[in-house]
């Protein structure tokens, strides 16, 4: 694995309004991250309702905004609140990435939380294929047929 050894020195230049919105998302994410896993999954599923899937570019931009707005979100062990904050920041723009909790496929058990978009890891090191997803919350698909019937998950 590769670990991050330094905080980003140049903070991106986002407008104040968007940084304040991201701060709100970060605050909410830190509260949500305290929930038990099944409650968090349920809460995020509800929040994802009505959003369209985020593109890779949108999710990447949201992640940068979160990292710029909160020093703490850069932490090597802040993956859970960070991934939730990125998802919530996307949601403020009407989109939703796939939020995931999982582990590396090979031992030791390495719990991690991250977001994906268009089938790719956003801002994570390592290969998409090597992570096993234990919980994931994707944007709801178009409401049709069987999916519509099961959408109260």
């Amino acid at each position: 694995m590769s670990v991050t050894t330094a905080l980003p020195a140049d903070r991106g230049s986002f407008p104040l309004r968007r940084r304040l919105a991201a701060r709100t998302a970060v605050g909410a994410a830190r509260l949500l991250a305290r929930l038990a896993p099944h409650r968090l999954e349920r809460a995020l599923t509800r929040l994802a309702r009505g959003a369209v899937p985020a593109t890779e570019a949108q999710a990447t931009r949201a992640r940068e905004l979160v990292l710029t707005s909160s020093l703490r979100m850069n932490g090597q062990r802040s993956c859970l609140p960070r991934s939730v904050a990125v998802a919530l920041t996307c949601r403020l723009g009407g989109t939703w990435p796939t939020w995931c909790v999982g582990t590396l496929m090979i031992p030791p058990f390495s719990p991690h939380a991250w977001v994906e978009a268009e089938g790719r890891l956003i801002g994570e090191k390592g290969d998409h294929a090597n992570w096993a997803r234990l919980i994931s919350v994707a944007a709801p698909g178009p409401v049709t047929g069987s999916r519509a019937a099961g959408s109260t998950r």
Partner: protein
Amino acid sequence: MPDRGAPFFFVFPDNEAGSAAARHLREDVPGLSSAAHASGRDWIVGRWEPADLLVARAGRNAIALIGTFSQSAAGALTRRAGVLRDPAELDDLALTLSGQFHLLASVDGALRVQGSAYGARRVFHTRTGGTLVAGDRAAELARLAGLEPDPAAVALRLLGAAPAPLDERPMWSAVTAVPPGAALLASPDGVLSERRWHRPPEPVTPLDRGAAAVRDALLDAVEVRTAPGGLISSDLSGGLDSTTVCFLAARDSRARLIAATSTGDEAFNEDGRWARWAAEDLPGVEHYILPNEELPKFYDGFDDPGLRLDAPTPLVASRRRVTVLTAKMAARGSRLHLTGNGGDNLFVGLPHHLHTLLVRHPLPALRRLSGFRALLSWPLAPVARQLADRRGYRAALAAVSLRDVPEPVPGSPALGWLGQPSVASWLTEDCLRLLERELAAAAPTAVPYGRTPGRHTELAALRGLVRGNQDIEDAGRAAGVPMSAPFLDDRVVDAAFSVRALDRVDPWAYKPLLVRAMDGLVPRRSLSRTTKGEGTQDVAAGLYRNREALTGLWEDSMLGRAGLVDEAELRRLCAVPSSPQLRDDRFLSTLAAEMWLRTTVNAQGALA
């Protein structure tokens, strides 16, 4: 065919007893090299490559260098020998020379035996046959004098990194270690003394001036190794340190360079990508990449016939991994393999310096503190408690407890004089009591390696790294090529440690001093990396693959027979290789101690 066994030397005094001991040694071990006192008696006896010894003589005086140095030093050494009246006068000499070497002097019957300032070259001494013998290897001295290891020293090794000064204690009670930065002096009538010739510099130099000094010292350190020419090789791990060494070595057209990379599994590790980028910027340098399937797993070959080393080494778990590139480079005919070892210790600024910075520069220190807390996800309470702790070193050492130690939490803050030693669940009650006695005996007189927690911690960590590096160099040489670490030269360390802590400790920058020093010598792209490879996955896989042999080890172990470990507990844990207790240094240090004892103690000589 040069002898690839680990080099070593003994120093004998210029008298009848010393001469007799040297003669016995040379009869017992044929083929040793030697250099004589002016009297004709044996002075230095051991094994080294001819180019690694330089003796300058003038009348009754002689000065010798053993190790890595520039041959052009000969003239200055001879002049110096001519005016020398007392070996104590040589304090300033070593720091005028580049490289890593021992400095020896024989002045009309008096001796000086000096290693390097930070421990890359060590000096030990003992007595045998009624005479002093000094040398660079504790294990060789113990063998010469027929000594058995000290059970208390073995027990201390089970703590992982024992707190200073116990971490420097030789494994034989009759062997004395001369501290790094001090020289052993012996007068003609046999009186011994230690003379401190070096102190680490005060960290007062600003970044710009410090970076220029680091740059000069590193250029010299690499040049002294490339100057003899020929084919050399270097690690190119993808990390900043070995990348630096590669770019500096590639500047010298006298030597041909192969850069060697072991990428590991690139699905998890970015090192390979960074190494290839660096190699793109090294035109004319061959880049060898080890196929990942040829990289041995951790613990593979842990029971290979051991090297005879001064102390247990965690290298037992990774020796094949660490030397796989060296062996490949030996097959290619490399005469010397360079590494970036030591770079982390010099350039990753330790947050321990915050202790002092908070008092002297509160605002920048608070900013750095919040950065470290964010980056490393440190909770506030323990950080504040540790920074508010203003006890001295002795009090901190006296407060170390080996009982009811909570399971270590990886990444939890440790900012004081010393971290909690690791106490494994398999240490016996006898072992714990023995350790408590040793700690209690050391605490009242213990002196930290530096005046502040920051300086002490960086020196303790550097000395630990340097001990491990010697083991790596021995393993590399056994695999076919001498290895060498330019970052560990005294002048390089001095230059790095003289820079203000504020300029070296920065959570927003990775190795800021090295990056500044290499600006213009190493491409910007390679200097911009802010991640670092890490091998947790490989350790877990290795434990799993070698679990049967690791479990079987504790059927009749030397540590078990000595009453230091609970073999049943070790068998139980090794059978479950996912046990978290096996993953940190608790198990590694136990395995290291066991394998070291098996190599060192002969069949009858069990620990009493």
